[in-house]
C-alpha cells in the first residue's frame, strides 16, 4: 500500500523532518535514531546520531545526540507540530562490533542520552527497541507515526 510513497534514506549524522508524507528508512548499529511525531498534526521526523554528546570538536552537527535531539524537535515544531503533543520512539544502540571507532559502550551511552534528554524535554517514549547485540533496520511513516523494525545480523554499520 505504501509503494507510492516517497522514501528517504537517512544517513548517519543527518536528520529529516519533511512537511509531506514520507517513509524514512535507516540502518542502525550502535547509533540511535529517534522518531518524533505529533499524532494530532500528523507531523514527524527522524534523527540518527552516532555519539552521545558534542564536546566542542569539529562542527556542532547532529552526529551528536544532544544536538540531534534539539534540532529534530526544533524542526518538527517549525513544521507545525505542537510540543505538548509530541511523542518519541527510540531505536538502536546495539553493541554491535564496530570497525570504525572503539568507544566504550557507545550504544548504551547513546541510549542513555536519548532517555535523559527526552525526559528533560517532557516528551513521552511511546515505543522503543534498544540495546542488544544486533543491528536494526527501521522505517518510519511520518504521517501515521508507525515504525516498522527488523533485526539484522550485520557486524558493522
Amino acid at each position: 500500500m505504501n509503494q507510492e510513497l516517497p522514501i528517504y534514506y537517512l544517513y548517519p549524522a543527518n536528520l529529516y523532518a519533511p512537511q509531506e508524507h514520507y517513509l524514512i528508512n535507516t540502518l542502525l548499529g550502535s547509533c540511535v535514531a529517534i522518531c518524533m511525531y505529533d499524532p494530532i498534526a500528523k507531523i514527524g521526523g527522524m534523527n540518527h546520531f552516532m555519539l552521545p554528546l558534542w564536546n566542542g570538536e569539529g562542527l556542532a552537527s547532529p552526529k551528536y545526540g544532544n544536538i540531534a535531539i534539539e534540532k529534530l524537535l526544533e524542526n518538527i515544531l517549525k513544521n507545525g507540530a505542537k510540543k505538548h503533543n509530541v511523542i518519541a520512539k527510540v531505536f538502536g544502540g546495539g553493541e554491535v562490533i564496530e570497525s570504525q571507532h572503539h568507544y566504550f559502550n557507545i550504544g548504551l551511552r547513546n541510549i542513555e542520552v536519548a532517555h535523559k534528554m527526552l525526559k528533560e524535554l517532557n516528551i513521552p517514549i511511546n515505543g522503543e527497541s534498544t540495546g542488544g547485540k544486533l543491528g536494526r533496520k527501521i522505517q518510519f511513516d511520518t504521517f501515521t507515526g508507525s515504525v516498522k523494525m527488523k533485526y539484522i545480523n550485520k557486524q558493522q554499520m
Partner: protein
Amino acid sequence: MNKRITDEDLLNELKIRFEQNKKALTELKQKSEQLRKVNEKLKESESLKSHFLSNVTNEIVNPFASILGLSQSITSLKIDEYEKIRPLAQLIHSEAFNLDFQLKNIFAAAKIEAGLAQPELAIVNIHSLIESIIESYRYKAQQKELKIQFKYKSKNKSTSPHEFPTDSEKLKLMMSNLLNNSIKYSNAAEKIEISSEINEKDELKIMVRDYGVGINKNEQEKLFDRFVKGESTIHSLNEGYGLGLSVTKSYVESLEGRITVDSEPKKGAVFTIYLPRPEETSYLEGFSDDGNQIFFEDSDEEF
C-alpha cells in the same frame, strides 16, 4: 541478635571505607576535571562563533567593495584602453572566486550542522575532477609562483581506472579546501604536490603536500575544529573563517573515510584523505530510492 565486633574488625572496616571514599573522591575529581575541559572547549567554540559573525561582515563586504570598484573602473575605460580590461577582470575574478569559495564553506557548514549533508553518490572521474580544481586555482598559484604537480595512479586493474563512486560536489569542496590551504600557507616559489590513487584496500587516497609554514603539534589537534585558523606568517591578512577543514572532516566522515595530517613547522604539511569504496547497491541507481530500499513484511515488528 547481638554480634560483638572487635576493635580490630572495626578499624579494618573503617579503613576499607576510607579507602573507598578516597577512591570515589579521586574519580570525582577526574570527572570534574574532564567536565571543566569540555566546558572550556564549548565556551571557546561559542566565543569563536560570535567572533565569526562579526568577521563575516568584513570578509563579505570587502571583496564586494573591490568587485564593485573594479567593475566600475572597467565601465569607465575609454574605447582605446581595452588592453587594461584584462588585469582588471582578472582581479574581479579572483575576488569573486574567493568569495564564492568562502560562501560555499559557510553554506556547507550550515548544512552539516542542520543535519542535511546527505552523501549523493555517483560514478566520478577523479582524475578530471582534481585537474579541474587545480585549473581553477591556477591564477592564485601563479601569483605566488607556486608549481602544482599532480600524479594519478590506480592499482585497480579495472577498465576505468579513473573512476570511483563518490559524492562529487563534496569531493570538490574538500579538494578546494586542501589546495586553497596549501597555497595560502606556502612561501613564494615553492611547489605543491597532489597525488591520487586507488590503493590496495580499494580506497580512494588523495594526498596534498606543501612545503610551506607547517603546523606545530598543538595546533594540529585543533585544526579540524570550527572557526580555528592556522597561524599565517606569510599573509598579514589571514583570510577565511576557519571552516574549511572542519567541513572537510565532516564530509570525509559522511563518506565513511578518514583524513590525516602530517606536519612540522617550517617543513610544510601533508593532508591525506582516504575514502573507502561505497557498497555497490548504494550508488548504482542514484542513491535514495532503490539503492537503500528496505523491504518489510507484515510479520515485522511495529512500534
